């Protein structure tokens, strides 16, 4: 297939208003933390973007106390309608500063600008907009009249969707009347600190939102702080289990959004070109750094060869490169550590006998990149079929009967998401019913909306984010 030549179309990095240093946000003020400052790196070039202050355990304590004061004196007793107006303000401010946030996110995270611009930032604004309207309608949420907030929420978010995960966490927490202390990921703290500036512009009362950058030790100090009423964590299953053990016996509330190993099932009557697009979106969106990524492709044997041929042709057209280039489809791997993990698991695929195919696309000479990769002839026992790779690596398995497809799809301790591709409506509903996963995308993939609850079964965590079901995580019900 002929490919078109693309002229580079880079977005201006000036739009990010990048500063050389960033401070933590505690009690309405930007302050230096007593922790060792971290350097946030642009994964596309490995250059240092900025120095960021981090929290010490004393800082964690200060932030929790600020959140407690704000909860007791202001936020917890404020009428819902007023809280809602603050959230509407925040939603609007995110929209106003959307280009700045998108460029900064792509610089810091390595994700393509078209994704941060068209998905991350607008969806983050939508979450604040949606939850703003809940703040004065909680009586109607189905949890009884006048449901109460929980208090101070400790929130720890991952590096794959830094601003969007912040929105998923903060918007419902504030709407329900809680105050928050949030720790962004070590490698992607910058947009959270611009969000803090948005809180300043929105004139949010001091202490309602506190942002503490830092590594795992800050997260651990935060979630185990005795004056925290609720913990919300998005990240690895391993860390999620550790947090659960830490909170055991304390009675504190917890919700977890953990890993996944989603099956994307293609039946023989599926619209193949449409399926190819969905498979590509499912595993190469955000470089595959997606907990609900469709990382296990299950194809009915009779169409496997044809689908794989079409898939490889399509994948070969994906452009890997500068995240700020508007033509880029696949950006940079977020960190050296993550790149090494992807390499290690891919090597395990080779060693265990799967067939590796790598896109012939050119890769940039510097920066952290990994070419889109497809493993075929994968068996269920292989590491690449069982473990979350969290990168642009697809494992292909085949099946013969619908029952076999469901059995293989459910053969995992995870249960976050699944995909189904078939023209037959009754088969879609049949499969959707049997798949043990919190989200099932039929003839589509990776759709998100603040009105649609998202979350896992089994070891993918508990609790939901979004919709009426998501409010339960922040109400004392």
């Amino acid at each position, binding site marked *: 297939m002929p490919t078109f030549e693309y002229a580079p179309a880079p977005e201006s990095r000036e739009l990010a208003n990048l500063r050389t240093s960033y401070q933590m946000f505690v009690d309405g003020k930007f302050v230096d933390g007593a922790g060792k400052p971290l350097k946030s790196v642009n994964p596309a070039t490995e250059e240092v973007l900025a120095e960021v202050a981090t929290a010490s355990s004393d800082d964690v304590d200060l932030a929790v106390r600020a959140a407690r004061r704000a909860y007791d004196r202001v936020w917890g007793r404020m009428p819902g309608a007023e809280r809602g107006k603050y959230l509407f303000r925040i939603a609007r401010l995110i929209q106003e500063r959307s280009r700045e946030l998108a460029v900064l996110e792509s610089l810091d995270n390595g994700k393509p600008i078209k994704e941060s611009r068209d998905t991350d930032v607008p969806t983050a604004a939508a979450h604040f907009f949606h939850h703003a309207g809940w703040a004065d309608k909680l009586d109607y949420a189905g949890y009884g009249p006048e449901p109460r907030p929980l208090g101070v929420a400790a929130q720890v978010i991952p590096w794959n969707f830094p601003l969007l995960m912040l929105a998923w966490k903060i918007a419902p927490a504030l709407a329900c009347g809680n105050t928050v202390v949030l720790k962004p990921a070590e490698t992607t703290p910058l947009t959270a600190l611009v969000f803090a500036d948005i809180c300043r512009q929105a004139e949010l009362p001091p202490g309602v939102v506190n942002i503490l950058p830092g590594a795992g030790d800050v997260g651990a100090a935060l979630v185990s702080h005795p004056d925290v009423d609720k913990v919300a964590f998005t990240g690895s299953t391993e860390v999620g289990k550790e947090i659960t053990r830490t909170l055991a016996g304390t009675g504190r509330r917890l919700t977890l959004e953990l890993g996944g190993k989603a099956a994307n099932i293609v039946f023989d009557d599926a619209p193949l070109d449409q399926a190819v697009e969905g498979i590509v979106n499912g595993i190469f969106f955000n470089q595959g750094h997606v907990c609900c990524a469709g990382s296990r492709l299950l194809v009915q044997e009779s169409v496997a060869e044809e689908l794989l041929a079409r898939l490889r042709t399509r994948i070969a057209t994906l452009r890997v490169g500068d995240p700020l280039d508007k033509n880029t489809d696949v950006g940079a791997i977020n960190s050296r550590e993550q790149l090494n993990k992807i390499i290690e698991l891919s090597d395990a695929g080779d060693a265990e006998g799967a067939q590796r195919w790598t896109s012939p696309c050119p890769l940039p000479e510097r920066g952290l990149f990994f070419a889109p990769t497809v493993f075929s002839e994968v068996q269920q026992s292989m590491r690449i079929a069982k473990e979350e790779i969290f990168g642009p690596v697809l494992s292909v398995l085949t099946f013969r009967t619908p029952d076999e497809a469901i059995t293989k799809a459910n053969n995992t301790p995870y249960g976050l998401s699944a995909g189904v591709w078939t023209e037959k409506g009754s088969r879609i509903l049949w499969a959707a019913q049997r798949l043990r996963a919190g989200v099932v995308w*039929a003839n589509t993939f990776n759709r998100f909306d603040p009105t649609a609850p998202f979350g896992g079964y089994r070891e993918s965590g508990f609790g939901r984010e979004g919709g009426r079901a998501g409010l339960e995580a922040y109400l004392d019900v």
Partner: protein
Amino acid sequence: MSNRLVSGTAAPRLSVNKTYKLYIGGAFPRSESGRVYEVADAKGAFLANAAHASRKDVRDAVVAARKGFAGWSGATAYNRGQVLYRIAEMLEGRREQFTAEVVAQEGLPLKRAAALVELTIDRWVWYAGWTDKIATVLGASNPVAGPYFSFTVPEPSGVIGILAPQDSSLLGLVSVLAPVIATGNTAVLVTSRARPLSAMTLAEVLATSDLPAGVVNILTGSPVELAPWLASHADVNGLDLTGAPEILQPELERSAAGTVKRVLHAPSAEPDWTRRPELRRLRTFIEHKTVWHPVGV
């Protein structure tokens, strides 16, 4: 229930005492361990020997519950409601037996015990009516911003381990068991240690109603001994700690973290079971599944 001699007009008659066993997979086995322990009434007199279930019995019960899950969770909500209502009918038929057991185990006056039994039956009816309303009340059609049909339905979490209340031998027991199975889960329940007899009589009701084998499995014995195996079992999806020994609760929660079980934490004291329940017990052991499909021609 006791060794008393009943004097009639003719010769005195020795009562036929009941041997209580476990309830696993629709059958009534003795404990694999061969052990029993003595259950006394409120005044300390001998009531019966109850089976002292072992770790192996827990594992057998989990296997039975897993086996029962596909059928029970796959049944229509209407069907589940019918089955649960049938159980209420059978409970009604055994009111006197349950009342006598509550009197014996809890030491309550007859009138009070009879009222609790009636409330228990009504509670079961209440949950029977929930089976086909849970999806309507907790589910949603999501008005997403795009050409997609998106809806959310509640589904059962799977096999749930329940540590039944230690004090309320019947009303408390039913209040923790009924919501778990009403939502389509299957259960492995460890009874009150001191007051296990009405649970085993309930098992007789369940076994002769239309409840499929394996949906409910009941073990008598020591919660201290059995709870850790339930909490760490990789094929158990949820854990209700209501009647768990307080001192063990943190450790049970830590064990449950190993497979990210859904945990219903124990209240600080045994709740007042006569109060109308909230939906929390229904909500804790369900998952929300969101399904998306494009809309277009």
